[in-house]
């Protein structure tokens, strides 16, 4: 079941993708969050919101750089690790990736204009450059995820004698899994980016920094994540039912269903050992109810296929799925908590449990990252032993090159260092900003009245760069 010869290649792909995907989430969703505070800053002459936008754009600069290059490595990895996939199906899976190329180019160009256009472009024109960044982020994600969903539900090609003979680009892009995987990933990106952006400000609030700047820095991104959450749960629920139908063995492993059965039990937690679930909480019939809206719905078990066609590590797959759902549910609860207090008191949740709310807010970024990574574990490990479901086995996709264990070690070492370095850089930036303060002495990008001044452009030469807010 666990083909050992593919483990180094899958580990390398998994670690480089697992690293990149966090940055990809920030690339997809963070520009929209920056745009919200930037818009607020311009519209309401809100200097704190503008300061947030300016500082966040510096964070963006770091993350976009790391994301751009780690994404390139993935395109290399497709060839370095999976020539068996690319050589045979490159003409098919390459179609969504090609569209991603367009969006990535546009995203890179407008990101650069936004990041380095502070103080030099007219304020509103400057903000507008974020719109294509946010849009191409969504469209790019759509393209990449369409490629992944094609691996789950391959369509749009014909084969003869081991060669692709025709390709239908539309059917490839809009395959049967695209419609649920794409929104699931985009919403995940908004939750991850919202949670991560809110984290340092939640910590600030916990430490007693109750100024407007800190509150805004927490509220805007956290609200974005909270709004995405109920939609995400709805999409995820639809996705699970689609998987029960289209990839029944993956679903069976997610839910610990060995034998095809009506009235399948839903297991909360639990470890798969010696043919039994250990330490899980069983809820009779619930799995059938969730998958088919009826306690008598027939759920296909994994013994419906030979052992060689089943995914490895059922415990990992099941627990990853549970962790994802659990975190999503907590995010929903936290969002409702905030909504209730905001509705009643126009304020952050207070009272005796107020600190618990903030602690949750401070953990929400990491939690959303864990949930997203867990979701990828479910979809990728759950598809094994197939790279392209029921079309190409991973053992046939993997490279014949001998060097993978070596590049795996190099990848792990370099990405380990980069992870530490990225956090260290962000921490240094945060420290610098903490020292500067949230408002008060800090020069803000362009003062409300400066619009007219900046309109004249930097060539005027004597314009005051930023009003000092007292």
């Amino acid at each position, binding site marked *: 079941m666990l083909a050992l010869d593919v483990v180094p290649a899958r580990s390398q792909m998994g670690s480089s993708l697992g690293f990149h995907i966090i940055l990809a989430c920030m690339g997809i969703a963070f520009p929209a969050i920056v745009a919200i505070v930037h818009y607020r800053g311009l519209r309401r002459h809100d200097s704190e919101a503008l300061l947030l936008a300016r500082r966040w754009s510096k964070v963006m600069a770091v993350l976009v750089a*790391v994301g*751009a*290059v780690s994404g*390139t490595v993935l395109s*290399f990895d497709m060839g370095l690790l999976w020539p068996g996939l690319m050589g045979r199906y490159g003409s098919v899976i*390459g*179609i969504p990736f090609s569209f991603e190329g367009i969006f990535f180019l546009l995203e*890179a160009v407008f990101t650069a204009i936004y990041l380095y256009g502070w103080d030099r472009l007219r304020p509103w024109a400057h903000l507008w450059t974020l719109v294509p960044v946010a849009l191409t982020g969504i469209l790019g994600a759509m393209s990449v995820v369409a490629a992944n969903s094609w691996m789950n539900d391959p369509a749009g090609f014909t084969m003869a004698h081991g060669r692709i003979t025709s390709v239908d680009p539309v059917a490839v892009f809009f395959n049967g899994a695209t419609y649920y995987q794409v929104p699931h990933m985009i919403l995940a990106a908004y939750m991850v980016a919202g949670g991560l952006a809110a984290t340092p400000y939640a910590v600030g609030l916990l430490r007693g920094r109750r100024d407007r700047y800190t509150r805004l820095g927490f509220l805007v991104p956290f609200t974005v994540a909270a709004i995405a959450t109920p939609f995400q749960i709805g999409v995820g629920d639809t996705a699970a039912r689609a998987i029960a139908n289209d990839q029944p063995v993956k679903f069976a492993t997610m839910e610990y269903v060995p034998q095809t059965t009506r009235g399948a039990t839903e297991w909360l937690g639990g470890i798969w050992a010696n043919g039994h679930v250990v330490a899980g909480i069983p809820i009779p019939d619930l799995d059938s109810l969730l998958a088919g809206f009826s306690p008598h719905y027939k759920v296909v078990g994994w013994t419906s296929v030979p052992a060689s066609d089943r995914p490895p590590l059922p415990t990992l797959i099941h627990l990853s799925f549970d962790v994802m759902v659990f975190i999503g549910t907590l995010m929903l609860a936290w969002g409702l908590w905030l909504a209730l207090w905001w509705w009643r008191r126009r304020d952050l949740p207070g009272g005796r449990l107020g600190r618990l709310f903030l602690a949750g807010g401070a953990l929400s970024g990491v939690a959303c990252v864990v949930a997203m990574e867990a979701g990828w574990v479910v979809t990728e490990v759950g598809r094994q032993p197939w790279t392209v479901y029921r079309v190409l086995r991973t053992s046939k996709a993997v490279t014949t090159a001998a*060097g993978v264990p070596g590049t795996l070690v190099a990848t792990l070492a370099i990405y380990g260092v980069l992870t530490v370095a990225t956090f260290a850089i962000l921490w240094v930036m945060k420290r610098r900003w903490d020292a500067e303060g949230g408002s008060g002495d800090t020069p803000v990008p362009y003062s409300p009245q400066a619009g007219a001044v900046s309109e004249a452009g930097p060539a005027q030469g004597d314009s005051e760069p930023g009003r000092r807010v007292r």
Partner: protein
Amino acid sequence: MIADAVAAVIVLVVTAYAVLAGADFGGGVWDLLAGGAEVGKEARHRIDRSITPVWESNHVWLIIAIVVLWTGFPAAFADIFTTLFVPLSVAGLGIVLRGCGFAFRAQVRSLRWQAVAGGVFAVSSVLTPFFLGTVIGAVATGRVRGTPGDPVASWTNLTSLLTGALFVVVGAYLAAVYLAVDSERDGDVAMRGYFVRRAVISGVAAGVLAVVTMTALRSSAKPLFDELVTGRGLALVVISVVAGTAVLVALLFDVTRLVRPLAALAVAAVILGWAISQYPHVLPPRLTIAAAAAPSGALTTELVVVGIIAVLVAPSFALLFRLASSGRLAEAHDPPPAADLGGHPPR
């Protein structure tokens, strides 16, 4: 026919990558050679200012080239990445280290960590184009011919190593020319002279190295050599020599007008000359474009994608370069020093 068009697209994208991102790598080479922290401060600052707003956008062309290659000619892509596993792995990791080193250097404040991040950036700016060059050298000399090729000898032969070195020197040359022009624009006479000198030296070095590589091709890839010297590629080789010489003459007479496009043309002509001379092969000496091509549905899609890129991306790049070259894009300082905003009106 349609496969030829897709192949042409790949060559054009590779050319764009070479003349745009090649110069960003070259900036790293000059950063490496700029000397100690104090001595090299001004040059590093100049390199930083020129590269920062554009390098990510320039870099994306590589991804486009790879994706169009794997979609249009999947078997060739798989062969290249299997046989040349080692240099492509090093180049991939080099790309990551280089980008991160550069981005991190901009944010750290202590001199020691700036030196570490900058060192990573600079060293990987040499390694990455070198290994990418060995890949092109291996393909051009027919070392990639079906899985599994020789994982070592395919890229450690003389021509491949020379091509790798040529890539590094050409990048440095382009960077020096572009940086000289940028310095002139900003009225920085000292840096202008600094990079003009380096442009002349690296230009001559690139020319010499190109001749040596061509000579090596004579024994390692005779058909390619013949086409370059007496056949289809000759016109482009001549264009490259003329443009390259014109740049040198202009720089020696202290003229920087038009040297940027001319230098890019000198480099682009070599790449186009190689491609035309290698036609109709994707992987010489046997695999032809027609034989390696994907079904027409995939090829048409690639042309549509390129059409969209031409319509949407080209104007965006034009905007980016216009803003960058008029000095309207720069690292936002925190807090913004007045001099950067009010002091020197951009030209």
